[in-house]
């Protein structure tokens, strides 16, 4: 594919939504910056205003007050229809057009933008390949002929077709079965890292938030931001009881999934069994429990980072709980595999 549009930053400033006749605002004075190219997850209980906040960004819901800036440009006013064509949108019910073929669904935004037919067709093929659907098999089918997981892949392809810098996703994998959901999460995580889009992802599932987010915004009623941080800080140093509730009683175990073997490797530990440097500590622990005394941490390029034993693993996890600032170091921002 030719040049792709990278993500741009999203700034929300004092964003507020008040519905007429309702005293309490649905969203009250939200100010936050979503850095360009990052995937930020809004997580919070049902009815906390997370979806309303997200829908104000593409103005499916018009803000009562405040401002939205995409890449520094104010988009609070001006034509919402044109704005939405520059913002990918994926929802839980997928919302594919049942009377259109998969190709027509995916090609919808490019067609509206006036692309030439041949260009649209080429883009549709690229997009279907991108989300793992063979174009020759799927392009001519109709949505009802696809499984739920396949439909959601088409939903993602449709959202990405016009190469928008920003993607909004409202519980996109919520309606799929657990196995499909995990597949889709992993795939989408990889896709996002490859494309570098700015993504806002809304969910009520904290597991999903941890699995996907570069940063997580934990929201409470009226979309109040309780904590906005990386998964490691959230788990290691929850700001309030509200966040602790989300993290639950198994914070240390959760942290295992957020750290890589490389980060826990020590030169002084000798081992023979190999583990990839980017594997999670969860996987490392699994191997250690199975009876291997120590693991050798090897990078994709063959570089040996050192050895990893049970003590090293415990130390590495504990570090984030003793001193959450560790999680804010550049190493703390390492992309997990």
């Amino acid at each position, binding site marked *: 594919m030719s040049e792709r549009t990278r993500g741009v930053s999203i700034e929300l400033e004092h964003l507020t939504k008040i519905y007429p006749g309702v005293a309490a605002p649905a969203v009250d004075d939200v100010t936050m910056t979503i850095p360009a190219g990052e995937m930020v997850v809004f997580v919070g209980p049902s009815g906390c205003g997370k979806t309303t906040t997200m829908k104000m960004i*593409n103005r499916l819901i018009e803000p009562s007050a405040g401002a939205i800036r995409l890449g520094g440009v104010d988009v609070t006013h001006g034509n919402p229809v044109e704005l939405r064509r520059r913002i990918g949108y994926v929802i839980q019910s997928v919302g594919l*057009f049942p009377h259109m073929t998969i190709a027509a669904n995916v090609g919808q935004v490019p067609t509206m933008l006036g692309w030439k037919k041949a260009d649209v067709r080429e883009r549709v093929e690229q997009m279907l390949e991108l989300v793992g659907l063979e174009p020759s098999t799927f392009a001519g089918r109709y949505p*009802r002929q696809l499984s739920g997981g396949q439909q959601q892949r088409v939903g993602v392809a449709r959202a990405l077709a016009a190469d928008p810098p920003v993607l909004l996703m409202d519980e996109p994998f919520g309606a799929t079965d657990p196995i499909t959901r995990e597949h889709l999460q992993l795939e989408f995580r990889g896709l996002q890292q490859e494309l570098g889009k700015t993504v806002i992802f809304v969910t009520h599932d904290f597991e999903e938030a941890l699995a996907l987010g570069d940063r997580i915004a934990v929201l409470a009623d009226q979309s109040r931001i309780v904590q906005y941080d990386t998964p490691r800080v959230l788990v290691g140093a929850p700001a309030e009881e509200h966040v602790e509730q989300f993290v639950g009683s198994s914070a240390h175990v959760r942290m295992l999934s957020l750290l890589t073997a490389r980060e826990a490797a020590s030169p002084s530990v000798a081992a023979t069994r190999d583990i990839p440097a980017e594997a999670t500590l969860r996987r490392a622990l699994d191997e250690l429990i199975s009876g291997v005394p120590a693991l050798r941490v090897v990078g994709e390029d063959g570089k040996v980072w050192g050895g990893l034993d049970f003590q090293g693993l415990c130390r590495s996890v504990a570090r984030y709980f003793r001193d959450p600032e560790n999680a804010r170091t550049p190493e703390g921002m390492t992309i997990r595999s």
Partner: protein
Amino acid sequence: MAEPSVWDYLGSQWSHIEPLMVEQVELIALVMVLAAMLGVGVGMAIWDKPGSGGLVIGAAAAFLTIPSLALMTLFLPIFGLGWTGTVVALVLYAQLPIIRNTVAGLQGVDPGVLESARGIGMSPRRVLVHVQLPLAWPVIIAGVRVATMLVFGISAIAAYVSGPGLGALIFTGLQRFGAVNSLNQAAVGGLGITVLALAFDGAYLLLRRLTVSRGIRV
């Protein structure tokens, strides 16, 4: 003198009956094209307006209760004898099922589909024309079918105001009841309308087959 059989009557009078059948088909086709354009247009205008929409549907329903003979007579001073008054009356009678089905069809579109249509940047007009209308289409066609059957029945009355179609056979047959072939004449008029109505119904099935997307065909 014994009444000749229907077949004898058909055979001897075919040159007289055939043009009436053609006229009947032309009348219904014209009425339904106009009625569908009007009814679907009105439905598209009111589907999302519960207040004024209710009024329009109520009016169309009330209209249907006016006896057709009375209405056509009322139209006489305005449109005179013949086609115009008949067409206007029939188009109006056809409105209720068409408008109601158009509204129901447009309202019945999955909210998730509508949200994603708006969310990817379709204008309200594009949502209506490219998403809602095609999805509502099977329901709209069903409404037009019902309206067609309704109009076929009422169209026979048009002969009373010298309107076109097979109604003329029924009326003449009844007026000279007892005379030779009077019963045959009325029966051929009535049966002719029935047969044509069934033919139209078949045509709608074909239209449905050809115009409803494969993705939503049941």
